[in-house]
């Protein structure tokens, strides 16, 4: 046999592992800060940069793309080399992957606090960073396939299938969802509007959970769980069914994020049906993981690595049962927009992703440093404190979510809303928010203990940067793949395998997204809906910059409890000029779709200066900087041009003069309205634009008095 000697690259694995721990602490600390602001708004220190609306996307991006992203790369770069019996395809690509990815994270950590955001959840980064993400992802994909093609094992193990599905699908999702027309170096408008933007965004958002937080980690589970338990996977057959059924079904389920919205009914129903079906493959995978531990449960009691893994896989099972339940319309009517969703995602994030990452690190670091773990006891402390932290996070969120959902819907004996003031329902939740911060603190302390343990382990050992191994060349291994198109044959054909996987994920996306473009009846037009005025465009951009969408939805569902509280339910045709859509996914504050004309301009002015002046006890942060900062109108022409490119019918040449005149006229009107409310304000401040936008919201449909009175 022709045996070759080669070396595994451990340096890149270590780099990603260190970045995982570092960004984990940063991302969790940002989360804790955001959580604290929800019961103590002054924790933003009256600073725009770290106010909730900006720190919340920083937290989600840091945890998803920095913590889990680096963890995923660490695990893939370690396991892929070993499963392929080959060094990574190209060292330069490996390091470009590392520095590129972490450079992107750094750019996110700077740009999000600056308010540079698209506002699309988990896709907030602006277009130059989006392009960088695409480039780095291609580098990773080339490195992945290069390694697979140079493998010394004929057949690809199940973990590699999940890595392939991850690489291909994330590229597809990221590119399609990020398509936008730039309006300056750090500003862009989505090419999609309203309902279409919502569907594409949640096709992306849902499948980012599927193909960034789930499939790569399932690959890691299939590799590291057998390793840590020293047992083969329970059923290889089951893993085949798990893989194909999961990647095929997952992609269809995105619309369950948009139940009862203005999305056409057929798309909602399709999303719901496929979400329920998703339980089967998810639980197949979970059981495959847990049953791998048959006969090894005694080891679970002693080994912290296995403890973390058991909880991770169990949390995966709980989250993937809970998700489909929440996707059933009747449950969703209660759970949507509440903290229930926050509890659900944290079962996945803290339990599944967090604990699997920790188990992998505890297994990996001693091996990279050829030593024992510095302290098993400390790892056990981490396990218990992390588990306790998770409980203190998730349980209060369930209590809070169900409480608020029920309060929103409660009518009294006379048929009126029992809690007509939204704030009443929020104030009930404050103890739960405090408990959640306790949970988050415990989890963060656990992560710091992990960092200490990793550091001490590294200190006590010697790093093995290059690991020499021997394996026979692929050509010299005899093989008997007699059945073309059998799965065994397919496992030896990475390109055919990848093409089939791509088809499996592509079908669902096509069936869902394409009809919305081809069938006009899906978005009925409303003649009174007109494009935003120039001042409203700039006001909307401030709304996006401040991350208002993080706490306020703009989508009234067709329930009596909502139409009583907010007004007429939202129609698809009202959003045709919304690039991007701002429907939101969480109501920490009330829905704003019909806030236009509900309060006088002066109310908004006072409310933004200090929310407690108009709403005693409010947890909304103060925005004093909006009152003093001058509105930048120089950006207007570029923004009007970009909006015209994405389909908003501003007349040609509108941006060269008429737009500025219209803007100045509307500024004067808002100032005049403020004077009626005894507020003196300069017309050129940001707050004026924001008020103009808020007063426009939802008024197209109700032909609001306010607009009529402000027409010149």
């Amino acid at each position, binding site marked *: 046999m022709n045996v070759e000697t080669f070396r595994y690259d451990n340096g890149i694995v270590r780099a990603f592992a260190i970045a995982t721990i570092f960004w984990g602490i940063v991302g969790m600390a940002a989360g804790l800060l955001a959580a604290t602001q929800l019961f103590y708004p002054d924790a933003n220190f009256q600073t725009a940069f770290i106010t909730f609306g900006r720190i919340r996307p920083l937290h989600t991006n840091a945890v998803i793309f920095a913590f889990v992203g680096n963890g995923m790369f660490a695990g893939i770069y370690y396991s892929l080399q070993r499963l392929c019996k080959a060094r990574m395809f190209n060292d330069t690509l490996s390091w470009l992957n590392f520095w590129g990815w972490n450079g992107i994270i750094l750019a996110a950590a700077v740009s999000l606090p600056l308010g540079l955001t698209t506002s699309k959840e988990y896709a907030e980064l602006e277009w130059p960073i989006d392009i960088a993400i695409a480039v780095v992802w291609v580098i990773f994909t080339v490195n992945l396939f290069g390694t697979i093609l140079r493998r010394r094992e004929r*057949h690809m193990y199940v973990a590699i299938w999940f890595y392939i599905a991850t690489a291909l699908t994330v590229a597809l999702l990221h590119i399609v969802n990020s398509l936008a027309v730039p309006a300056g170096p750090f500003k862009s408008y989505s090419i999609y509007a309203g309902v279409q933007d919502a569907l594409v965004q949640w096709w992306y958002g849902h499948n980012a959970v599927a193909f960034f937080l789930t499939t790569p980690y399932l690959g890691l589970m299939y590799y590291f769980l057998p390793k840590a338990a020293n047992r083969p996977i329970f059923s290889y057959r089951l893993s085949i069914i798990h893989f194909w059924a999961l990647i095929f079904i997952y992609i269809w389920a995105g619309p369950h994020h948009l139940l009862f919205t203005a999305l056409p009914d057929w798309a909602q129903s399709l999303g719901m*049906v496929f979400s329920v079906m998703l339980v089967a493959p998810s639980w197949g995978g979970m059981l495959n993981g847990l049953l791998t531990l048959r006969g090894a449960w005694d080891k679970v009691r002693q*080994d912290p690595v296995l403890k973390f893994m058991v909880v991770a896989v169990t949390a995966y099972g709980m989250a993937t049962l809970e998700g489909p339940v929440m996707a059933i319309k009747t449950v969703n009517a209660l759970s949507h927009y509440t903290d229930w969703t926050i509890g659900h995602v944290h079962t996945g994030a803290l339990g599944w992703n967090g604990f699997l990452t920790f188990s992998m690190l505890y297994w990996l670091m001693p091996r990279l440093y050829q030593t024992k773990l510095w302290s098993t006891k400390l790892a056990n402390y981490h396990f218990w404190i992390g588990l306790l932290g998770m409980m203190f996070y998730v349980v209060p969120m369930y209590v809070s979510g169900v409480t608020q959902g029920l309060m929103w819907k409660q009518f009294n004996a006379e048929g009126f809303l029992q809690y007509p003031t939204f704030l009443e329902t929020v104030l009930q939740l404050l103890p739960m928010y405090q408990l959640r911060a306790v949970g988050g603190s415990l989890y963060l302390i656990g992560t710091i203990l992990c960092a200490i343990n990793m550091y001490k382990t590294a200190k006590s050992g010697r790093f093995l940067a290059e690991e020499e191994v021997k394996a026979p060349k692929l050509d010299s291994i005899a093989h008997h793949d007699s059945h073309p198109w059998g799965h065994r044959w397919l496992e030896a054909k990475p390109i055919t395998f990848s093409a089939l996987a791509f088809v499996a994920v592509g079908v669902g996306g096509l069936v869902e997204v394409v009809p919305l473009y081809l069938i006009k009846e899906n978005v009925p037009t409303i003649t009174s809906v007109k494009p935003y005025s120039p001042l409203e465009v700039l006001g909307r951009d401030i709304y996006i910059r401040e991350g208002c969408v993080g706490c306020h939805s703009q989508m009234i569902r067709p329930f009596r409890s909502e139409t009583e509280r907010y007004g007429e339910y939202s129609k698809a045709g009202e959003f045709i000029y919304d690039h991007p859509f701002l429907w939101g996914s969480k109501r920490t504050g009330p829905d704003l779709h019909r806030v236009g004309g509900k309060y006088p301009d002066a109310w908004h002015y006072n409310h933004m200066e200090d929310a407690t002046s108009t709403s005693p006890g409010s947890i909304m942060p103060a925005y004093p900087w909006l009152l003093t900062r001058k509105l930048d109108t120089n950006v207007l022409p570029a923004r009007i041009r970009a909006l015209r490119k994405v389909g908003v019918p501003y007349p040609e040449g509108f941006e060269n003069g008429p737009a500025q005149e219209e803007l100045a006229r509307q500024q004067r009107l808002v100032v005049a309205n403020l004077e009626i409310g005894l507020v003196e304000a300069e017309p050129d401040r940001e707050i004026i634009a924001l008020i103009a936008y808020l007063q426009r919201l939802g008024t197209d449909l109700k032909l609001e008095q306010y607009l009529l009175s402000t027409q010149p």
Partner: protein
Amino acid sequence: MIQKVLSAIGGVGVYGVIAVLLFFGVFLGVLVWALRLRAPYLDRMSRAPLDDDDDDDPSSPDPSNPRAHSPDHE
């Protein structure tokens, strides 16, 4: 009958039928794929992660376990 049940979930129409047929097609196909695989191959592949050269478990108090027991090494 399937059409009736599916259209009752609201506006889903022919998409529901296509979706369910597709799903069952894919599921049955994958099931056949999985069942056609032979035991020795399944056994070898399911042990793939244990088949490295660096599995001397440094953190375990019990040094007796590594994967020298993998059938490929026997």
